C-alpha cells in the first residue's frame, strides 16, 4: 500500500513539475476532461473523430511508405519505371508487412473522403456551419481542399497509367486559363509533359507541403470548435443553460463519455476498414484502379481516363460545361441576379453587382454574339477588324473549357458560402420544413448521379443528365437564401431533446 502511495505521490510531483513549466493539466482539462459536449450526439457525430483517426493512419503509414518509395520515373533493368517498381516490387513484396501498409494507405485515401463527405453532410443536416461556427466551417473547407490536393498529388506517385494520364489531364486544365494558361501548366509540370520533374515535385507536395498545412488547419478547426462548443442534432446552444458552476446543463465531459463512445465507433469503422484491406483492397477497381497496374507510358493513352471516385461529381460538372450548356448557365446566373436585385432595395452596391455580374458573364460566355449561336456583332458591323488582345478574342468571349474548369473549382468552393446562404431561422433539419428537406434530398441525389457519370465514359444520356444535375447542384446553393427563408419551420425547444 505504502509503495503505491509513494508512486502516485511521485507522479503527482512530476505532473506539478511539468505544469509549472507547460500547461499540461490545463490543456487536458480545457480540451478533453472538462470540455462539455452535448449529450445527444448521434451516429452522424462519429465522423469527426474518425476523420482524425484516418489522418493519423495516413501519416503513420505514409512515413513507412516514404522509407521505401523512390520518386524516379527512369526505367530499371527490367524496363519498369523505378517509382512503379518501388511500389509493386519493393513495398508490396520485399518489405515485411509492406503490402498491408500500402493497402492501408490506399484504402485510407478513399476512407478519408467517405468519412469527410459524411462529416460535411452532418454539418449540413444540423446547421453546424451557422453562427457562431462559420470559422470552424471555413477551416473545414480548407481541410477539404488540402485533402483533394493530397489525393491528387499522391495519386501520381505509384506512376501507373491512371496516375500519369490523370495528372496529365488535370494539369492540362490549367492551360484553359486565358493568356497565361500554356505557361502556367508548363510551370506546374516543370516539363512539357508529365515527367520525372513532375513526379519529384508532386512527391514533395504530397509528403511535406500539404501535410504541414493540413495539420495546421486541423488544429485551427479544433481550437475554433472548442472555443464556441459543439453543435448538436437539435441545433440549440447548450451554453444558454448552465448550472451554478457554469457547466452547461445538457453537456457532458468529452472524456470519458464521448471518448468511450467514439472508441466503439472506431472499432466498428476498423472492422469495415480491415474487411476492405484484407479481402478487397482494390475496392472493385474504385480504390485501386485496374489500369494503374500498368506502368505509366507516355505513348499509350488509355481509352477511358477517369479520376478516382471521390473526384467524379466535380469531374462530371467539368464535362457537363460544354458551349451548348452555357446559355442555361447564364439563365441561371441571370435568375439569381434578378432575385437578389429585388431583395436588395437598400444596398446600391449589391444592386450594382446584380447588373454587373450577368453582363460580365454574358460577355465571358458568348462575347458579342447572341448566346454563342450567331457570329459576333462586330463581324457584321466591322468585318475584318480583329479584337484580339493577348490571344483572347474579345468579340467571342472565353472558351467553354475555361468555364468548365471554373465550374469544377467553383462547385467545390460553394460549400464555403453555406453560412451566409442559409437564412433559415432554425439550424437543425429536425425543425426545418418541407422545402429545405426536399432541396437537401435533391442535392444528395444530384451529387450521387454526378458522381456515377463521372466514372463512366462520356455518353449523350450521361451528358444531359449531368447537365441537369449540375443545375440542380448549383440551385441548391444559389436558391438557398430564398427557399430557406420561405420554409415553414417548427418551433425549436429551449433545451435539447434526449431520451
Amino acid at each position, binding site marked *: 500500500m505504502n509503495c503505491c502511495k509513494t508512486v502516485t505521490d511521485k507522479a503527482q510531483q512530476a505532473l506539478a513539475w511539468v505544469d509549472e513549466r507547460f500547461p499540461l493539466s490545463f490543456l487536458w482539462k480545457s480540451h478533453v476532461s472538462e470540455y462539455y459536449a452535448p*449529450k445527444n450526439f448521434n451516429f452522424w457525430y462519429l465522423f469527426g473523430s474518425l476523420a482524425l483517426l484516418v489522418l493519423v493512419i495516413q501519416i503513420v503509414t505514409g512515413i513507412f511508405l516514404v522509407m521505401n518509395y523512390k520518386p524516379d520515373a527512369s526505367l*530499371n*533493368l*527490367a*524496363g*519498369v519505371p523505378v517509382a512503379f*517498381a518501388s511500389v*509493386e*516490387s519493393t513495398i*508490396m*513484396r520485399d518489405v515485411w508487412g509492406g*503490402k*498491408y501498409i500500402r493497402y492501408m494507405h490506399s484504402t485510407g485515401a478513399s476512407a478519408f473522403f467517405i468519412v469527410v463527405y459524411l462529416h460535411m453532410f452532418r454539418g449540413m443536416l444540423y446547421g453546424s456551419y451557422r453562427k457562431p461556427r462559420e470559422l470552424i466551417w471555413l477551416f473545414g473547407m480548407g481541410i477539404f481542399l488540402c485533402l483533394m490536393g493530397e489525393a491528387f498529388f499522391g495519386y501520381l506517385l505509384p506512376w501507373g497509367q491512371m496516375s500519369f494520364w490523370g495528372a496529365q*489531364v488535370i494539369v*492540362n*486544365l490549367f*492551360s*484553359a486559363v486565358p493568356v497565361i494558361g500554356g505557361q502556367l501548366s508548363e510551370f506546374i509540370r516543370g516539363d512539357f509533359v508529365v515527367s520525372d520533374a513532375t513526379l519529384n515535385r508532386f512527391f514533395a507536395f504530397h509528403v511535406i507541403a500539404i501535410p504541414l498545412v493540413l495539420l495546421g488547419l486541423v488544429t485551427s478547426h479544433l481550437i475554433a470548435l472548442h472555443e464556441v462548443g459543439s453543435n448538436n442534432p437539435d441545433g440549440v446552444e447548450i451554453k444558454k443553460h448552465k448550472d451554478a458552476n457554469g457547466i452547461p446543463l445538457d453537456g*457532458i465531459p468529452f472524456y*470519458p*463519455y464521448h471518448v*468511450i*463512445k467514439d*472508441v*466503439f465507433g*472506431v*472499432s*466498428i469503422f*476498423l*472492422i469495415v476498414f*480491415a*474487411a476492405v*484491406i*484484407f*479481402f478487397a483492397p*482494390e475496392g472493385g*477497381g474504385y480504390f485501386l484502379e*485496374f*489500369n*494503374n*497496374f*500498368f*506502368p505509366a507510358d507516355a505513348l499509350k*493513352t*488509355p*481509352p*477511358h*481516363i477517369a479520376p478516382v471516385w471521390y473526384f467524379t461529381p466535380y469531374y462530371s460538372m*467539368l*464535362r457537363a*460545361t*460544354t*458551349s451548348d450548356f452555357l446559355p442555361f448557365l447564364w439563365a441561371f446566373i441571370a435568375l439569381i441576379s434578378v432575385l437578389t436585385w429585388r431583395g436588395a432595395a437598400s444596398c446600391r452596391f449589391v444592386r450594382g453587382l446584380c447588373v454587373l455580374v450577368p453582363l460580365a458573364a454574358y460577355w465571358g460566355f458568348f462575347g458579342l454574339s447572341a448566346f454563342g449561336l450567331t457570329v459576333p456583332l462586330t463581324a457584321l458591323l466591322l468585318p475584318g477588324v480583329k479584337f484580339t488582345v493577348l490571344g483572347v478574342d474579345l468579340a467571342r468571349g472565353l472558351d*467553354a*473549357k475555361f468555364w*468548365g474548369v471554373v465550374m469544377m473549382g467553383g462547385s467545390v468552393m460553394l460549400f464555403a458560402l453555406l453560412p451566409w446562404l442559409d437564412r433559415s431561422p432554425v439550424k437543425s433539419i429536425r425543425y426545418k420544413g418541407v422545402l429545405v428537406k426536399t432541396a437537401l434530398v435533391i442535392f444528395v441525389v444530384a451529387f450521387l448521379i454526378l458522381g456515377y457519370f463521372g466514372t463512366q*465514359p*462520356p455518353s449523350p444520356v450521361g451528358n444531359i443528365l449531368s447537365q441537369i444535375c449540375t443545375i440542380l447542384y448549383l440551385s441548391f446553393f444559389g436558391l438557398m437564401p430564398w427557399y430557406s427563408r420561405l420554409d415553414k419551420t417548427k418551433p425549436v425547444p429551449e433545451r435539447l431533446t434526449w431520451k
Partner: protein
Amino acid sequence: MSLLNKTLSVALLMLALVGQGVVQAQEIKLDKAPVKFDNATLQQGAKLFVNYCLNCHSASALRYNTLTQIGLTEQQIMDNLMFTADKSGEQMIVALRRDDARKWFGVAPPDLSVVARARASELGSGPDWLYTYLRSFYRDDSRPTGWNNVVFPNVGMPHALWSLQGVQEARFAEVDDGTGKKVQHLAGLELTQPGQLSKQEYDEQVASLVSFLTWMGEPGQETRHALGWVVLAVLSVLAIFSYLLKRAFWKDVH
C-alpha cells in the same frame, strides 16, 4: 468541348483506327478462368511460365526463391527453373535487350509481374482476360508475326504456345452493320492443325499458367485472407467490449 472530351475522342479515334484490321471492334466475351491456388497447379503454371513466357517477358517483382511458397525447394528451383540467373534471390528478369525486342515485335514485351491485376475491366477479371487471350490466337498472314488475337487485336506478340495448342484459323461472317454496309465479323476460331495437346488438355494447361500469373500478381493472397479473419475477430472483440464499456459509462447520463 472540354479538353478531356477532346482527349477522349482522340483516344477513341485512335482505338477505332487500330481496330481497322480484319477484325472489327466487337463485343468480346471473356471465358471464366478456372483459377486454382493448389501447389500442383501453380507448379505446373510456373513451369510453363519459365519455359514459354520468361524468354521475352520479365516478372521483375518476383524473386525466384518466392517460388518456395508454392512448395518447391530452393534446389528444385535452381535446377529446373533458373536458366539466366545465378542466385535464387534474383528477380525474374529476361536477358532479352529492350531495344532488340522493340525492333522485333514493334514493342518491348511488358513486365508481367502484376498483369493479372492490370487486365481486369468491366468485361471480367484479369485472369478471365488472360485465360481467353491465351486461347484466342489465330493465323493472320497480314501481321508481321503471322499471328493475331481476338481479345487483343493486332497484338505484337506471336502465339508462344502454338506448339501446344496447334494452329487456329478465324472464320468470318458478313454482318450488316445497321446502315446497310456489310462488315466482316469474327464468327469463331477453328483448329486447323492440331498441336501436342488436345483442346481440353490445352485449356487445363492455360488455366494453370493463368493461375500462376494470378498468384504472381500478389504472392500470399491467401495469407492475407487468412490474416483478415483473425484481424476481424480481434476487432469484433474490441467492438463488443467497447460497447459494454460505453453502456456502463453512460448509465449516469440522464
